[in-house]
């Protein structure tokens, strides 16, 4: 048994195809998850001191509802394995839609299901990151903003977000990398991503050592690219 470099060279085109798809699913899912997570994270603490003080009357009711919805979403996603979520979205969701609305044949293709899975999964974890970062902003700074008479939205946009964002970058980077690696699970719904490509090549030539080494290095390159981008963003921001 020797390490055959030629095997890697031969399989590289398919592996790169798989890596491209993994990257596409991860990035689309992460961007969607970031939006979802920011909204859910802010909903989770709507109407509290951390985002500009107590609310009254109808807006108090609204903020309680928001908190409850966000809480339910986060706990549901964090409490179930991502592989089950992927299976549910791909196989069970069309059936659920049929049961509820009577519409038959609503189906997502595997890649769409994969993107949605990453989005809602990463979104739940990012919601907690956003909540933590916002709550870590000094209460005095929030009060200083409030005391000037700016609106809640201005306070969140101009004071809380810029400070919270800096704090959120390291844990967000963590989540980005986890989500990228989670795309390997979509092998179970038949997405031709990197891990599946590796598996298929392996099944035809049985060169486990070469193929899995190459697959691992492909993931490492992609996660490094994410980490370096985030470090660049962090460095470019004003030190505070």
């Amino acid at each position, binding site marked *: 048994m020797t390490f055959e470099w030629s095997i890697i060279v031969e399989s590289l085109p398919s592996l790169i195809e798989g890596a491209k798809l993994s990257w596409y699913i991860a990035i689309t899912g992460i961007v969607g998850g970031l939006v979802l997570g920011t909204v859910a994270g802010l909903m989770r603490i709507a109407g509290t001191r951390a985002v500009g003080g107590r609310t*009254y009357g109808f807006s108090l009711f609204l903020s309680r509802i928001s908190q409850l919805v966000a809480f339910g979403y986060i706990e549901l996603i964090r409490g179930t394995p991502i592989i089950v979520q992927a299976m549910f979205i791909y196989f069970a969701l069309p059936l659920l839609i049929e049961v509820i609305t009577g519409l038959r044949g609503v189906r997502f293709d595997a890649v769409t299901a994969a993107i949605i899975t990453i989005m809602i999964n990463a979104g739940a974890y990012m919601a907690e990151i956003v909540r933590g970062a916002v709550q870590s902003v000094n209460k005095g*700074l929030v*009060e*200083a903003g409030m*005391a*000037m*008479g*700016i609106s809640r939205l201005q306070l969140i946009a*101009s*004071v809380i977000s810029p400070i919270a964002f800096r704090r959120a970058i390291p844990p967000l980077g963590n989540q980005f990398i986890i989500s990228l690696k989670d795309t390997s699970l979509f092998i179970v719904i038949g997405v031709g991503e990197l891990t599946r490509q590796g598996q298929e090549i392996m099944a035809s030539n049985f060169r486990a050592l070469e193929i899995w080494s190459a697959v691992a290095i492909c993931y490492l390159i992609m996660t490094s690219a994410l980490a370096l981008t985030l470090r660049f963003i962090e460095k470019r921001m004003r030190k505070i």
Partner: protein
Amino acid sequence: MKPIIEFRKVSKSFGETEVLHDISLTIVENEVVVLVGPSGSGKSTLLRCINGLEMVTSGDLVVNQIHLPRQKRSVREIRKEVGMVFQLFYLFPHMTALENVAFGPKKVRGFSRREANHIAQDLLDKVGLGDRGHHLPSELSGGQQQRVAIARALAVKPKVMLFDEPTSALDPELREEVLNVMTLVAQEGMTMMVVSHEMSFAKKAGTRLLFMDDGRIDEDGDPAELLLNPQTERLQNFLRHVGY
């Protein structure tokens, strides 16, 4: 003399603990009120009720003709007219000194960026930091930060300024520069409420001294007279404690 802040039988509780008992107090325009008292006596809470950072539990509080807590929703209107300076400055750490001061005119008063920067530069000049505009708060000394914070509050063009222990986090030599700016603001006729233990400021710039103890206002009078001749034993003890 127009009343601008009126406490009418105001009480404030945090949970079970009542920290302000039945306060009645009228502040008229151009008064410079210095609030003293032992820690935990309710000075800061009294101040924070005025701009709605704390909501009063009972009674009526009228600030610039707006009633709290009946008109809770108008609390922003009050805050635009009531500037506040905090013990720990709380400058926005991601903005330069100039951006901090320009923030209010831009976001609260709707000035353009250029006009807001102009207002900010003028105010920085006034507090003696005209050449520090481009510095981040972390690059300034405590005294400089507090002077920027005063400029930031003034930039919104408030009718009243609240100071919550503005010098107690500063070294003695930095206090002077902050007190000088506050004296300047007082001399320009600003209505001020100052929680402070700086008796020299009370005597020099204050027009009224309130002594609070245990959620009540125990003494209320002319600073020079009260300091010379404190009526209650509590105030006499207190003055001894702060080394006056």
